[in-house]
């Protein structure tokens, strides 16, 4: 559970509310969300579609603005944190530029943030190695498989050394086998870099396998129904998914999801 990492709070939401004004009237996307994420946590957000898990992640990234409540990231407002480039964001699709090589794509944030050329190249080498894509820098996106493209997009989010990594269903579009492999790699990467990770998913095994903290959410209005602290060790081989402990946590997540569902029925 978090290993020997310091327990400094990185992200804190208090009474967070967010209502979208749409043509069909207001949509209550987040209601009274309270959550504390500590440094080095791997937090998964799980719930059915419309539960606000992606919206909450986007709010942390200051891509959405809460209607009320407070949200601090690294001790400042989400907007300030975004301007300070506090996080790397990985979207559902890799979204690599077809006109840039893999190295060129990873350099994109570095160019915008004004790193010098030598530093850029050095960082590209380092993150390509981190996501196991060393030697693919000169390839174009279309020459890579979907899984490799998503790894390249993770490398792009890691390149500027933000302490927080926000991932919005990054492996949702990939097949089961690739997904398992990437989950394993992501855990290794998390262990090596000691980043704080926010991870949106709708897969229970994925959430349980990856997380130190699982946030169960339910829709209409989007809210947190349960926060589960994982008791699994930091070191997690894929086989851990057959252990009694794993299955028990998965059960609790499923119960949480069902309870949220029954509330609405």
């Amino acid at each position: 559970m978090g290993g020997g990492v310091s327990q400094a709070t990185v992200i804190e939401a208090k009474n967070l509310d967010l209502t979208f004004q749409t043509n069909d009237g207001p949509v209550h996307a987040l209601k009274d969300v309270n959550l504390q994420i500590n440094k080095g946590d791997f937090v998964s957000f799980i719930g059915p579609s419309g539960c606000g898990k992606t919206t909450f992640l986007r709010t942390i990234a200051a891509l959405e603005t809460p209607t009320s409540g407070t949200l601090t990231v690294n001790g400042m407002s989400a907007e300030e944190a975004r301007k300070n480039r506090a996080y790397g964001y990985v979207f559902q699709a890799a979204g690599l530029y077809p006109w840039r090589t893999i190295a060129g794509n990873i350099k994109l944030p570095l160019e915008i943030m004004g790193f010098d050329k030598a530093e850029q190249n050095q960082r590209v080498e380092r993150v390509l190695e981190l996501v196991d894509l060393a030697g693919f820098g000169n390839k174009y996106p279309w020459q890579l498989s979907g899984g490799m493209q998503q790894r390249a997009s993770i490398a792009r989010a890691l390149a500027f050394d933000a302490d927080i990594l926000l991932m919005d269903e990054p492996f949702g579009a990939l097949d089961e086998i690739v997904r398992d492999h990437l989950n394993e790699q992501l855990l290794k990467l998390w262990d090596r870099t000691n980043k704080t990770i926010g991870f949106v998913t709708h897969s229970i095994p994925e959430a349980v396998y990856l997380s130190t903290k699982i946030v169960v959410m339910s829709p209409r209005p989007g809210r947190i129904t349960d926060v589960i602290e994982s008791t699994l060790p930091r070191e997690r081989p894929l086989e851990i998914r057959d252990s009694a402990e794993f299955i028990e946590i998965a059960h609790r997540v499923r119960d949480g999801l069902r309870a949220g569902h029954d509330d609405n029925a």
Partner: protein
Amino acid sequence: MRSIIPILTVVAAIFAIWFVGSFFMNKQWTLDQAERAGTTLSFSEVLADTMTQERPKLPTPIQVFDELWETTGAKVLDGKAMSKRSLIYHGWITLSSTLVGFVIGTLAGILLAVGIVHNKAMDMSVMPWAIASQTIPILAIAPMIVVVMNSIGVQGLLPKAIIAAYLSFFPVVVGMVKGLRSPNAMQLDLMKTYNAGQFETFWKLRLPSSMPFLFTSLKVGIAASLVGAIVAELSSSPLAGFGGRMLSGSYYGQTIQIWSALFAAAIVAACLVGIVGVIQQLTLKKMGMAQ
């Protein structure tokens, strides 16, 4: 290569219809001449005459391509490629105002599109005017532009280039507005997470994304530019260029000259569009965006 047979079939059909048309349209003149001379002609004599008249209503393809050769290739062999009776000379006049107008129109179109995408006021105000500008008949506004520019001492190539630009900027505006807006919400959000400014978003995302749209517009724009240059030549003096050739041909009933200028213009247009197409393919392939 597989498409060559259908293309040749269509070309052969067009020529066949054209020959038949020439025969029927020119036949009356031949018969009138014969009647005045008090002779009667056999069918083969009528047919031969309709194919070789000096000022036919509808010249045959052979006459048109003969004239094309006489005023281009043959002039080159004579070393008189740039004489006033050479279509190469006139073609160059049209081509130069077309290209200058195309460059002006493209730059203006891109600048307007950049403004429209980045500025709400321009978005609301410029587009309706751009559309309105294209509803004005070019044939009506071209002489006015020539006269106005002449009165402020601008003559020669520039007024014609401006009329060419007037027609070619529009497709570029429309295409580039669409192209600069083509990045999806996710791509724009990604730039936002880097705290990228408008300039960086434009330079690194919007502009590269717009390239396929730009080239499609350029193909339309360069053909429109040629049309603009020819229309401009109809109202400028001295009579020169493809437009001048067509006009002087119609003054003197030189139908063959009109048709050969028309064909030369079509060939030039096809070449220009083809060149833009090749540049498009090379660029998009290099950018990994080829369809």
